[in-house]
């Protein structure tokens, strides 16, 4: 069924449903956008939709009651059967409204309401007013066309491919081929109300043509559905196949019940009618149940995206997954646009696209502020209308931009980490160079100046006062050299430069006033210089904190190399409860470790001692 047909068959509501659906979708989007942070629009009136649906419900309830009154005549034997038709209309209407409310952007709800209208129309054949009977005759078989439409449009609500001509032809068979039957009817009053001539031959021919055409529609429907089901994943096929099969059988039931089932089961006309009615009444119930609970249709509407967006980042599944669930396409992908490279990348940063032409994948671009930021790639056989995808895309544009930046960031993070590592390494090299220069230059010069002062001091020709001055000078130089030694030790201890992390740690620990045990990897191979420095300063800072704050009488340093990582634990049996203030000196050190790709954690429960854990990727050199 084309959109135009929908509009034509929608006189009941006095408005064009398609624009109204689009408007509602737009409002839904605004609603979600507001929930997502109030950036994109104003609040929509979800109550407005409810009011409209309530109006439709009342309208159909009223019309059904009126029809029951109009068609009920106690004298007629099958009078109670006529009540069944408005009942059917109510069932279709109720199911349709439910689906409409829960899935506002899916047209199946509207289609079921149209089906309800068709049933009401067909039921008019039992009225007493000739004009109403005439309407009833025109619409007598239209419900079947609606059911065929339903079967084709399930579950997306859209018609695609061969379904369009088949459904259109179905409406031609139901409405068009019906025309000769009432124009040339050889029927008792009031069923001859539209008859212009009595042409029994023509009626027979028309009946045959309609029957055959109807059969053709059903055969074509079956072929299309079987072909479509073949491409569907097994889990969904198990639900869809029986449902669509039921739809086809229910339609076939109409001729089948009277010609085959009736004689076979010895049913009277009433029995046949009831069988048909029950079969057809089950359709909206089954379809709506599967639509809402089938687990493969849209499990959420666009509003749910808003709820998702406003939930905390920790509780969120990935954006693509949220979109996939909302739109009911598990294969949905998000691509991110990289402006500089003019191509798409996926969440992991890998280059994707373009889509092969002629495939069943659809692509909708997502824009933010007029710039392309990404694309939603979906299964076009599941989501027939790109507008729905586009709408969802508008809602998630901001979040997608965020994920795009994240993807971009992931790409640059590695580069950044390498840069940071190099910065820390070169800072460490610089420290070593400074320490060496101070030793080789200044320290040596001070020592040699001391030697010269000694020469003057002990020169036999020097006056006693000069000798004394030289002695003071030598003492001063010695003090200066001692101070410089302590300074250089602070920059980088000699033990660390000369004998490495383990020796330097032992050196430090040996001077502690509390019992401290150490354990190192066997072999004692040297580690990369920057790691040795960072680890040394972390350990010594931790032990200094232990001395200052922990009131511990025992500490332990454990280092191990495993799986390409250096792990260090510094533990004490002190009071615990180390706060960031007392561990302040560790912040900068933790940054250095982080720059080397590692981390530092401090666990310090009150009364439970303090444990510092450090871990850093490391290959011994």
């Amino acid at each position, binding site marked *: 069924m084309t959109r135009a047909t929908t509009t034509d068959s929608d006189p009941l509501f006095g408005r064009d449903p398609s624009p109204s659906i689009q408007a509602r979708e737009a409002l839904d989007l605004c609603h979600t956008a507001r929930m997502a942070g109030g950036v994109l629009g104003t609040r929509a009136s979800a109550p407005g939709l409810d009011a409209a649906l309530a109006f439709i419900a009342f309208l159909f309830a009223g019309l059904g009651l009126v029809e029951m009154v109009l068609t009920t005549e106690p004298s007629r034997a099958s009078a109670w059967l006529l009540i069944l038709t408005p009942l059917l209309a109510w069932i279709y209407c109720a199911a349709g409204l439910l689906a409409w409310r829960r899935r506002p952007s899916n047209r199946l709800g509207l289609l079921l309401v149209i089906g309800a209208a068709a049933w009401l129309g067909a039921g008019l054949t039992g009225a007493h007013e000739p004009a109403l009977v005439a309407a009833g005759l025109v619409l007598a078989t239209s419900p079947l066309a609606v059911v065929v439409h339903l079967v084709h449009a399930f579950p997306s609500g859209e018609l695609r491919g061969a379904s369009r001509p088949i459904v259109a032809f179905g409406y031609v068979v139901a409405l068009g081929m019906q025309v000769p039957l009432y124009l040339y009817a050889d029927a008792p009053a009031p069923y001859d109300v539209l008859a212009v001539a009595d042409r029994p031959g023509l009626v027979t021919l028309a009946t045959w043509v309609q029957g055959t055409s109807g059969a053709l529609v059903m055969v074509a429907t079956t072929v299309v559905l079987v072909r479509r089901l073949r491409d569907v994943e097994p889990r969904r096929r198990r639900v869809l196949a029986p449902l669509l099969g039921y739809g086809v059988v229910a339609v076939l039931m109409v001729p089948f019940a009277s010609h085959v089932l009736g004689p076979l089961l010895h049913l009277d006309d009433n029995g046949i009618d009831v069988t048909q009615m029950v079969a057809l009444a089950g359709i909206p119930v089954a379809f709506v149940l599967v639509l809402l609970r089938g687990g493969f249709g849209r499990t959420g509407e666009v509003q749910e995206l808003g709820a998702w967006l406003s939930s905390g980042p920790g509780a969120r599944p990935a954006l693509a997954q949220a979109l996939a669930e909302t739109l009911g396409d598990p294969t949905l992908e998000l691509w991110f646009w990289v402006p500089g490279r003019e191509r798409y990348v996926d969440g992991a940063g890998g280059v994707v696209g373009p889509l092969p032409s002629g495939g069943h994948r659809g692509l909708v671009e997502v824009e933010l502020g007029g710039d392309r930021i990404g694309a939603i790639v979906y299964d076009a056989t599941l989501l027939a209308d790109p507008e729905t995808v586009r709408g969802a895309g508008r809602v998630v544009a901001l979040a997608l931009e965020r994920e795009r930046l994240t993807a971009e960031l992931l790409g640059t993070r590695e580069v950044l980490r390498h840069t940071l590592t190099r910065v820390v390494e070169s800072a460490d090299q610089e420290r070593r160079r400074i320490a*060496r220069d101070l*030793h*080789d*230059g200044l*320290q*040596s*010069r001070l*020592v*040699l*100046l*001391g*030697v010269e*002062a*000694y020469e003057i001091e*002990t020169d036999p020709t020097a006056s006693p006062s000069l000798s004394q001055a030289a002695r003071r000078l*030598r003492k001063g*130089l*010695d003090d200066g*050299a*001692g101070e410089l*030694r302590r300074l*250089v*030790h602070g920059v980088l*201890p*000699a*033990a660390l*430069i*000369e*004998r*490495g992390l383990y*020796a330097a740690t*032992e*050196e430090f620990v*040996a*001077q*502690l*006033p*509390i*019992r*401290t*045990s*150490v*354990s*190192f990897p*066997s072999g004692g191979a040297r580690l990369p210089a920057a790691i040795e420095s960072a680890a040394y300063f972390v350990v010594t800072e931790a032990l200094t904190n232990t001395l200052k704050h922990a009131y511990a009488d025992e500490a*332990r340093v*454990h280092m*191990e190399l495993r799986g390409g990582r250096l792990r260090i*634990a510094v533990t004490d049996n002190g009071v615990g409860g180390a706060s960031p203030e007392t561990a302040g000196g560790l912040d900068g050190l933790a940054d250095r470790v982080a720059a080397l790709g590692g981390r530092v954690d401090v666990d310090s429960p009150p009364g439970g001692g303090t444990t510092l854990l450090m871990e850093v990727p490391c290959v011994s050199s």
Partner: protein
Amino acid sequence: MRVVLGEDEALMRHGLVLLLERAGFSVVGMAANEEELVGETEHHRPDLVVTDIRMPPDHRDEGLRAAARVKARWPEIGVVVLSHHAQRGVAVDLLRDHATGIGYLLKQRVADVDQFLADLRSVAHGRTVIDPDVVSLLMTGAPRAATEGLTDRQERVLGLMARGYSNAAIARELSLSEKSVVHHVSHIYDILGLELTPDAHRRVQAVVRHLSADRWPGPLATSHRIDADRHG
């Protein structure tokens, strides 16, 4: 007295050579890295090797390794390791592996020329000389079983013993009579459970070795094993 000097830094090397030559030492060979030092020593068989710890190519502990190689091959050659910094571990390693003729001095001591030259001669004669800073490193830290029970004075005597002081020198340094020093020393020996030997360098060695032993119950290797087990 013939000396091979291991020092890569030009200024310091020049100063040392000047100092040694003026004091009557004969600097027969100079080296700027580990291999050169071992090679020069092999070539000249000097009385003494004086070496810096850090040398090319890595400026780490090349001098220490060279010293260990020299002492292993020619135990009779005295080796003095010079360093800008005092490290407990270096002293421990040197004293553990080599019984006699070893010295470990801060470069800063060079300016105290008389004492420095005396220390060099001591080592060349097979004695052991440890820098006072190193000795204090060995004696600080957490109280350990070894020095528990010593009085302050006894600890000072022990420190001077470790530096190679004779009883007479200790007596002068602490303004005591030599007799009371002997008294202190025998007390220290009793408390530490050391064997009394008249040999000055032996007693230094014994004291230092004792002090540099791991401070916690059992040797270092044991604590390694326990920790390794505990941490999986």
